[in-house]
């Protein structure tokens, strides 16, 4: 049985840096960008521990602005 | 039949889709007749008694925005409540018809007839720069005829149209020939006539949005200017009026609605007394037939604006004639309908006092 791996793609220009995804992620994958801001001056969500992502979509579901797309794949060993 | 009943019959016959209203004297027969006739079983027309005039006009807003032929009716205090919705309809460019069977005010006032909502009707009525088309029937026949006309104009220009009646015309019984039967429009016909309407986006178009809101001043100004252009077009094309014995007249009565009927009798009485009087009856109060009145009033010795109010249309008569002839007002208040004799006496008084030329 393979391991489930996930990955997220953040529409950083749409992100408002509200942090709700950071709190919702069960694996602490996401943090807000440290020094960089987007076109609207907001820090944005970044997958800082991408290898830990399980593709549960919690971040996408709680995101008020629909910025996060979530992918999930069963990896063969 | 009564004027109010004629409205109900005419609405069903001209293919109206819905009525939303709230009872108020002296126009409750409109909804009562509709309820009695049960058009939902024949033409499929919706009839709904709302919780208030505010709700009624907003139901009209919703249904009109969805492309339907809908109307409401009320009397003065109720129409005052509707002004919010009418202003939104004007802003969102929605066609819809509303009927005001006027009674005296201010406030609760009286349930007796009046024409004291002239200012409100002809100056938009609610907030913002807008007008509504105002048709003033002076007979039960015209109550019936103006229903279809009001819808036609409302849809032609995408704006609210009003039938400004009063307690006399609404309650009066007269013979009437009802307008021919028109079927209600099909979905395809509505889609064609109202490509802007909100009844479900089809894959061939972008979503439609009905709104009067625009936060950008530059864009809002363009919207305002677009409305003004439309109003100019209405002024050019839709002025309606009637004249009687104006050609040889020395004096003119200007009157609309029930006051025009009484003035017609007064004109005859005056002529029996040797006073050559003509009658000018504006049928559209907005747009007001100002050019036509100006031309007719030229060289007359005096113009008497006869109204069942404290003097409202007289301002438009003065604007139209802009000082070229003496203009005075005669009116009764409190729900009292003037006698023809009183009108003739007022004319004589104006001549005697020198306000009118002898």
């Amino acid at each position: 049985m393979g391991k489930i791996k996930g990955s997220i793609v953040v529409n950083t220009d749409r992100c408002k840096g509200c942090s709700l995804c950071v709190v919702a992620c069960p694996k602490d994958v996401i943090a807000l960008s440290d020094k960089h801001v987007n076109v609207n001056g907001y820090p944005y969500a970044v997958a800082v521990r991408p290898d830990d992502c399980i593709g549960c979509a919690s971040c996408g579901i709680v995101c008020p602005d629909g910025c996060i797309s979530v992918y999930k794949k069963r990896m063969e060993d | 039949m009564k004027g109010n009943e004629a409205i109900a019959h005419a609405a069903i016959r001209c293919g109206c889709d819905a009525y939303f209203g709230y009872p108020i004297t002296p126009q409750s027969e409109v909804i009562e007749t509709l309820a009695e006739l049960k058009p939902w079983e024949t033409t499929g027309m919706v009839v709904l008694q709302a919780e208030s005039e505010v709700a009624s006009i907003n139901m009209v807003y919703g249904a009109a925005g969805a492309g339907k032929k809908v109307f409401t009716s009320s009397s003065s205090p109720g129409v005052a409540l509707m002004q919010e919705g009418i202003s939104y309809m004007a802003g969102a460019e929605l066609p819809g018809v509303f009927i005001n069977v006027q009674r005296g005010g201010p406030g609760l006032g009286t349930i007796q007839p009046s024409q004291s909502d002239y200012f409100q009707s002809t100056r938009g009525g609610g907030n913002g720069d807008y007008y509504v088309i105002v048709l003033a029937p002076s007979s039960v026949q015209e109550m019936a005829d103006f229903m279809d006309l009001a819808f036609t104009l409302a849809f032609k220009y995408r704006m609210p149209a009003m039938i400004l009646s009063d307690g006399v015309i609404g309650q009066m019984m007269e013979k009437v020939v009802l307008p021919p039967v028109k079927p209600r429009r099909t979905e395809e016909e509505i889609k064609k006539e109202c490509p802007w309407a909100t009844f479900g986006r089809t894959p061939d178009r972008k979503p439609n949005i009905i709104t009067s809101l625009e936060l950008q001043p530059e864009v809002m100004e363009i919207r305002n200017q677009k409305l003004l252009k439309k109003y100019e077009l209405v002024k050019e094309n839709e002025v309606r009026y009637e004249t009687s014995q104006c050609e040889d007249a020395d004096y003119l009565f200007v009157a609309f609605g029930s006051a025009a009927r009484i003035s017609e009798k007064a004109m005859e009485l005056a002529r029996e007394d040797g006073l050559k009087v003509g009658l000018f009856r504006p049928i559209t109060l907005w747009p007001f037939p100002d050019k036509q009145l100006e031309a007719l009033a030229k060289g007359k010795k005096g113009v008497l604006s006869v109204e069942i109010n404290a003097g409202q249309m007289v301002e438009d008569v003065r604007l139209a004639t802009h000082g070229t002839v003496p203009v005075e007002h005669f009116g009764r208040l409190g729900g009292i309908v003037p006698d023809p004799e009183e009108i003739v006496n007022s004319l004589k008084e104006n001549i005697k006092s020198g306000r009118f030329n002898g």
Partner: protein
Amino acid sequence: MKEDIIAPENLVYEKPSLMNDTPMHYCPGCSHGVVHKLVAEVIEEMGMQDKAVGVSPVGCSVFAYRYIDIDWSEAAHGRAPAVATGIKRCWPDRLVFTYQGDGDLACIGTAETIHALNRGENITIIFINNAIYGMTGGQMAPTTLLGQKTVTCPYGRTPELHGYPLKMTEIAATLQGTCYVTRQSVDTVAAIRSAKKAIRKAFEASMQGKGSSLVEITSTCNSGWKLSPVKANEWLREKMFEFYPKGDLKNTIDE
């Protein structure tokens, strides 16, 4: 490896396609965005894109029509249920819903709301209750909690000065015209899933002609509450749920 995962066949979540790319004007973390997504998802999943007509209110969500690509009618303050009545009565096979805040629904539009629900109009009312007036800058709402501070009750709401908070959803549950009345929230993944189910249930009931539904979403207004989005969710759970308990208040759909 990341490249292997990010492929169309592996997509498990994205912004609903009915929600367009126009950036939403809401403050960061605002509940409105989540509820907008749910509405868009449900309409999409029901395949009602071409039959749905939304009625937006006056308040923060006045511009709801900019974000979800269906037909919308923008109502005067509080009149959305009357506008929806007009549309639904004339187009009975359309999916008609209103989206209203607490000022719109529970204050200026109380009459329109109660009467539309009581007539059993086959519409859904989505009620965003964040206990404050967001758009005009954080004034007291009819739903503001006792003791809660707003710019028009800066020392906290007191019954003597301001009266009591109004539980519109409880009132709605007593009306004969309603078939489904529920209070939900969107503060956690589980809550969001539950709220989505509620919206779907209500929309379906309206299409089956079962009467009116009211779906209250007890929400946050972090700007108005002067809290961070995360803290606002905590305050919601601590304070709001106590006075506005979650769950179904009425469900006669399956009877």
